[in-house]
């Protein structure tokens, strides 16, 4: 038997693919990145922004595990914002507007510098599978390329079909051909595939916008950045401006009058689109009584006049797009540079993968990103990272790396997609995380650093930085717990009168009425240079009670998460289960009892039956020998 050409082949150079390549390279793998166009790595095919509520959490986690997306965003960012600032720390999120060309360029250079990585410009047209084990890929221009593991990160390219009005054309995204053959190869291997839809708004020539009529939205100062690993405070470009504008009743009228030419309503599009990102035609139909819809004018970068009209995703015919856009406030004379379009693509419903992202059917084959029915750069990047790590662990014959729902949004996402029916593109929301209070942007590194260390994901510089951070936090907490604030200051600055007179800063922080800003303004500049650490200490102290409550629930849950269900388990044999539960369990085949409980239709009484059977079954063989000896 000849040695395969590579350890790992990554198909697709988007946000998932590049993270997978980076992780595998870091772990010493010999990696081939197969991409149709090596000048288009990590392209922002849709909106030129990274982060947002829930998504920002994902970026911080990927960064905490050594990923690219955080660093690349900080580098290519042109406007940095913190969302939910008026709310509690757990739901505050970073969102960064990016220069899409700079972003792609940064990632390309990053990947080019990685060791053991070869970029192959080609198209994967099929898989080579022997005895349910992946052996490599078939390619259009080269012969078969062999590897020990394959990661499919194909984005919207699998049989991609774009729609603008009644025009349909094959393609993976604007200006790029679709990938044909891979889906069929997956089907031959026994995979069930499905069809999803997404869309993108028209791009506008910024010089044709009347900015006097729209409301500017600047970034926040100081700009919040994503990456934990800047050695010194990074120089962030925060000069970019976004603008807020609105559609008019005229916009709705034009679209409604032309609904028969809209593929979404004519039946031309069969895939299901995301409800959280509806097209403009969907908005005016479903929310017909709304007089206006909010839109965001977002720059695509510094060196371009092109802008992205966020909120105006559409597949209406080009002439109608042009007319409708000109009814938007400030866009009366706007010129479209690229029309919006809808795209349908194949995905492999993710009940067919494991939480490690390896497919259940074919050993060594991993799926990451939109092929799993997810949507978004952040979701893709997170999966790419995990697939890269787990493909390596697979090759090394080690246990896969699976994060829990109680320790990361990544864990929430992967658990979600393997336990539920994905019928629309899956996007992260913080409401998906039942342990939301513990999963914050500020503590992403604390949560994940043990894994980063365990799997050797950090460089020496990064490790030194982590150690420094930990020391700073410890010192800061120590200081806050030992430093007293006099009764006079309490009264004067904070309006507090207490029986015992003075209190420590940490006690002060625990008072519900005392805001962080108040303490900072009182303490002067002492902590301004360590604001991140100070804030984290503040959060830890302030939310101790709630975090403790959540911790108790996590502990309770962990027990069930630890009970594995044998992969050959026959649910039909459990007479105590209700029919719906049996059917769902047979389809989703959960890996643990905890997962079984999250499948829709499985009731607490089903769980009781299942738990008793499974745990009994599990313990029997391991105790059998000693029992007999007794």
């Amino acid at each position, binding site marked *: 038997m000849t040695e395969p050409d590579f350890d790992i082949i990554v198909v697709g150079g988007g946000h998932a693919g590049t993270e997978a390549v980076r992780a595998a390279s870091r772990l010493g793998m010999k990696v081939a990145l197969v991409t149709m166009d090596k000048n288009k790595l990590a392209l922002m095919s849709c909106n030129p922004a990274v982060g947002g509520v829930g998504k920002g959490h994902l970026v911080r986690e990927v960064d905490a595990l050594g990923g690219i997306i955080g660093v690349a965003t900080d580098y290519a960012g042109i406007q940095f914002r913190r969302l939910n600032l008026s709310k*509690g720390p757990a739901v505050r999120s970073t969102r960064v507007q990016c220069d899409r060309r700079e972003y792609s360029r940064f990632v390309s250079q990053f990947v080019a510098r990685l060791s053991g990585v070869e970029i192959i410009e080609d198209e994967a047209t099929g898989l080579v599978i022997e005895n349910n084990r992946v052996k490599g890929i078939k390619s259009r221009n080269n012969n078969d390329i062999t590897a020990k593991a394959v990661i499919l990160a194909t984005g919207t390219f699998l049989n991609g079909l774009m729609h603008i009005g009644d025009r349909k054309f094959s393609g993976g995204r604007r200006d790029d051909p679709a990938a044909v053959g891979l889906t069929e190869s997956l089907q031959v291997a026994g995979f069930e595939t499905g069809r999803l839809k997404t869309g993108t708004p028209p791009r506008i020539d910024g010089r044709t916008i009347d900015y006097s009529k729209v409301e500017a939205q600047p970034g926040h100062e100081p700009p919040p950045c994503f990456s934990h690993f800047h050695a010194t405070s990074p120089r962030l470009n925060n000069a970019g401006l976004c603008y807020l504008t609105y559609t008019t009743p005229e916009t709705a009228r034009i679209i409604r009058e032309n609904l028969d030419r809209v593929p979404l309503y004519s039946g031309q599009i069969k895939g299901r689109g995301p409800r959280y990102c509806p097209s403009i035609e969907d908005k005016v139909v479903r929310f017909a009584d709304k007089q206006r819809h909010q839109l965001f004018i977002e720059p695509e970068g510094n060196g371009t006049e092109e802008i992205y009209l966020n909120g105006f995703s559409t597949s209406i015919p080009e002439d109608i797009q042009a007319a409708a856009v000109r009814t938007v406030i400030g866009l009366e004379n706007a010129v479209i540079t690229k029309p919006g379009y809808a795209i349908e693509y194949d995905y492999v419903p993710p009940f067919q993968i494991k939480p490690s992202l390896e497919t259940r059917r074919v050993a060594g084959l991993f799926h990451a990103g939109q092929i799993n029915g997810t949507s978004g750069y952040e979701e893709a990047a997170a999966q790419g990272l995990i697939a890269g790590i787990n493909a390596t662990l697979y090759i090394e014959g080690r246990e896969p790396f699976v994060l829990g729902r109680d320790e990361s949004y990544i864990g929430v996402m992967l658990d979600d997609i393997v336990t539920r029916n994905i019928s629309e593109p899956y996007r992260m*929301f*913080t*409401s998906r995380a039942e342990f939301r209070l513990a999963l914050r942007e500020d503590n992403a590194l604390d949560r994940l650093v043990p894994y980063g260390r365990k799997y050797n994901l950090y460089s020496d510089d990064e490790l030194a930085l982590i150690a420094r951070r930990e020391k700073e936090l410890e010192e800061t907490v120590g200081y806050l717990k030992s430093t007293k604030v006099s009764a006079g200051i309490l009264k004067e600055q904070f309006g507090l009168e207490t029986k015992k007179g003075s209190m420590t800063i940490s006690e002060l922080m625990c008072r519900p009425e005392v805001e962080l800003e108040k303490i900072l303004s009182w303490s002067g500049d002492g902590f301004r240079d360590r604001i991140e650490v100070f804030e984290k200490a503040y959060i830890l102290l302030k939310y101790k009670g709630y975090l403790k409550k959540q911790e108790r629930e996590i502990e309770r849950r962990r027990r069930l998460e630890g009970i594995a269900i044998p992969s050959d388990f026959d649910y039909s044999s459990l007479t105590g289960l209700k029919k719906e539960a049996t059917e769902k369990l047979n389809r989703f085949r959960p890996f643990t009892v905890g997962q079984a409980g999250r499948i829709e239709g499985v009731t607490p009484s089903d769980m009781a039956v299942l738990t008793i059977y499974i745990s009994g079954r599990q313990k029997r063989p*391991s105790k059998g020998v000693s029992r007999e000896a007794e």
Partner: protein
Amino acid sequence: MDDTIAAIATPTGSGGIAVIRISGPKAPEILDNIFIPNKSDSKPTPYFLRFGRIVGQNGSEALDEVMAAYMPGSKSFTGEDMVEIYCHAGQFLAKAILDNILKYDCRPAEAGEFSQRRFLNHGVDLTRLEGSAEVVAAKTDLAFRLSKEHLLGAYGEHLAALREKMVHLLAEVEADIDFPEEESVGTIGRDKLEAELDGIIENLSRLVGSYQTGRIIQDGYRVVILGPPNAGKSSLFNRLVKQNRALVTPVPGTTRDWLSEWIDLDGLPVELYDTAGLAAGRGRVEKAGIAKTRSLIGRADLMVVVYDIASRTMLSVIENLRAGQDIIFVFNKIDLVDKPDTVMAKRREKLPPDAAVCTVSALTGRGLTELTGLIAGKAGLADLTESLVVTSYRHKTKLDRALAHLKRIRRQKNLPVEMISFELRQAAGRIDEITGHIYTEEILDKIFSRFCIGK
């Protein structure tokens, strides 16, 4: 498992004793707190029964005399530290003790949870395992069928409406968190939040309140006949149960212990108690009987105080009524008085003006219908037509806990929105356990149908 659970392990209904089981790390500590052994120096020897009293949280009031056993982990039924308390049967008594236990660091056990823990902690052989699993499955199935029937009625509708309100409120709160940039999603104002919360809290409180009635349907209405010696309590008891169960003699103080019998008053299940006469008893045995009567008074739903219409003896013991406790004054032996109405008028003067009073003759049966009507009236059977009733103790506890979470939001004026969500989800989680799980998808569905999300 690191939390401690407790439940009444014996089935509801008649029987000599009830067993309360506590399992988990806090079990021995809880026993220490609630149980005072009669031999004060007696140490808990594993698997040995000790005799003693169950006392309330401040150590004062004795609830019952019981036997208790401590079974340390690994070998116990559940495989963790366990305590079993054997008390007198009667669901009310056992529940009073359980309530007392639940004031400590433990929660009510779910159906089948002791068995679940057993299987989680012990590996048992397959036949035993399957046997037990079937029992548990049957139980939950039955519970399912029962609760389904129950849930189909007005109670179910009410709960469903409650659940819907929770989902609605959660959607508001979650949309605010996850879509801060959306114009159509506003921050839910404190006023609106409180208004919606108050609606839910009111509904929940009504449900929790209805458990009083629900408990009566489920466990019976506890009516204790008491009065001075020789007032004819046992005769009345016998009349009511329509059988000569109690021994009746003209000698005062004949009934030294209490007797109880179930009777059916037009569908109202009544557990009727005959007790020893309340007067300074002379003999030791009689004194013990009187002490028991006093402890029964504390647990009665209704006291039927029986006086001899010809006697002037009045009791002073029935002064501190519990909330929800009722009293009926019955003047017996009207067959022995010439002008009962005149005598009654005098007797009445010493009673509160709004007291429920009736005159009977236990011997002839005169006035009995009026008395049973009064009893049924006190039980509030009329309320049942609304049928919005919580009959399950488990449900009541869940609803109580849900209520506590919602009240916490109400109390803390500046609770951040994600904490509001946390409390709401905790509350929803408790209601979930009755009505079925609220999935995040359901909340998202609500958000997407109500708000135009589009960034």
